[in-house]
């Protein structure tokens, strides 16, 4: 079961702003989902290969060739701010 702090941390990682008043309700909902997961975990899956994809096919490959042309002017029409060909965003330094 998740603690309130864990709910706040998950919200932070997902960049979702959760007002303090909603944390407890969200905790309850998430714990409900975790309850379902616990039920599924009770099933004996020994010897079952984990499924990587719902479709039972393998990846098709593309030849290594440049097929795209420069369309940055078109793509940048939708950007809030552009300068010298760069997308401008609020400064984030890690």
């Amino acid at each position, binding site marked *: 079961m998740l603690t309130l702090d864990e709910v706040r941390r998950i919200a932070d*990682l997902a960049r979702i702003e959760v007002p303090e008043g909603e944390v407890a309700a969200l905790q309850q909902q998430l714990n409900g989902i975790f309850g379902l997961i616990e039920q599924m975990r009770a099933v004996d899956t020994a010897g079952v290969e984990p499924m*990587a994809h719902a479709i039972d096919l393998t990846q098709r*490959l*593309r030849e290594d*060739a440049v097929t795209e042309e*420069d369309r940055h002017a078109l*793509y940048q029409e939708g950007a809030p701010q552009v300068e010298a060909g760069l997308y401008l965003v609020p400064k984030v330094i890690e």
Partner: protein
Amino acid sequence: MSAGWEVVIGLETHAQLSTASKIFSGASTAFGAAPNTQASAVDLALPGVLPVLNAGAVVRAIRFGLAVGGTIAPRSVFARKNYFYPDLPKGYQISQFELPVVVGGEILIAVEGVEKRVRLTRAHLEEDAGKSLHEDFHGMSGIDLNRAGTPLLEIVSEPDLRSAKEAVAYAKTLHSLVRWIGICDGNMQEGSFRCDANVSVRRPGAPLGTRCEIKNLNSFRFLEKAIDFEVRRQVELIEDGGKVVQETRLWDPQKGETRAMRSKEDAQDYRYFPDPDLLPLEITPQAIARERDAMPELPAAMRERFIAGHGLPASDATTLTASKALADYFEAVVKAVGGEPKACANWVLGEFSALLNRLEVEADAGPVPPAALAGLVKRVLDGTISGKSAKDVFAAMAAGEGEADAIIEAKGLRQVSDAGAIEAIVDEVLAGNAKQVEDYRAGKEKAFNSLVGQVMKASRGKANPAQVNEILKRKLGQVAGLAP
């Protein structure tokens, strides 16, 4: 360096794969284009786009797996590594997590003549992120997504390295190998090959200590300095009664130190899960066999051949096989000379390598092609010129003055091997240096060298030194009244 402590290092290396297009889109990977001109809809994560895997990236991963003797997974899975950063438009990086494309393998390194096997944990395919530029945008960051989606092979070693020197030897060997098998251009200035180092210290025999990860080391010199600094920092911390905290650190080349970037508490929880946009990657035994057949002879095998087949010392063989360009050059010289591998190796590792270092170019881009060097080596071997003149001829060849034979004639460097001519010079020198002759007779060996010097001088350096020695010995024997 730090008495009583054992250093434990593992490296994570990102090698940019030398494909023409990106790992999941048809945009170009060429370096240095104007910002965002090589960022396609897929690289920008526009709504509704889907990634399609590049066969060229897969082939290069297979080649790497074969070259290190790892297991190439018949089935591997792409996963999303979730984090938010402006140069990662999707909000996740496509990588591999539980089922990587290559598992295991090893790299053989040599430090000061001592060989060591470094085990690899895994190598997996992933995409690179874009670049953030933080200056000159009135308080904002500029984002260039040309690099977003560039294919990378992340190569993870086991914590088998025990010093900064070993870490550098490992990184250099790996760097040479990825270029050798043609999967990465190895250009470190352009970021095609970069290392993260996990460093910890412990008392010998004790369990592993807490590690710190040093990010983005893009030169061998920085790698060595950053590890040395980090080891000192951790040892001092523990000896002063403190504790190492698990964290990510950055190397600051200006200050020559590592500094904390984020601690474990702030560490990202990447919440990996299989990417539903990509099906599992299947690699057939046929695909692996195709790459195995196309593989060049690997450096380790070539090194053995140089030792066993050419009779070269191990150190020569190691240096010659440090790069494919140099190894190929050496082989071409031996072939053109028609044998004499040791003499060829001496020239390739001596004058030729010094020239390459001076010009900062690879062996295949130097101004003296293998056939030209072979022409010079032949003239040394057949006694046409002395070893000393040969260096002058080489310098002239490097300066573009033509082939060895033409330079030898033009400069009049052909050595005198005519016994009669040398005897005449020797007679002259003996007559004019009675004192030295006397000294030699009195048992002073040094006098002999002085006489050789006089003869060489009189011949203006052209007399064949071996012949001078022989004739001089014979004549001195007569002078001394001993049997010739």
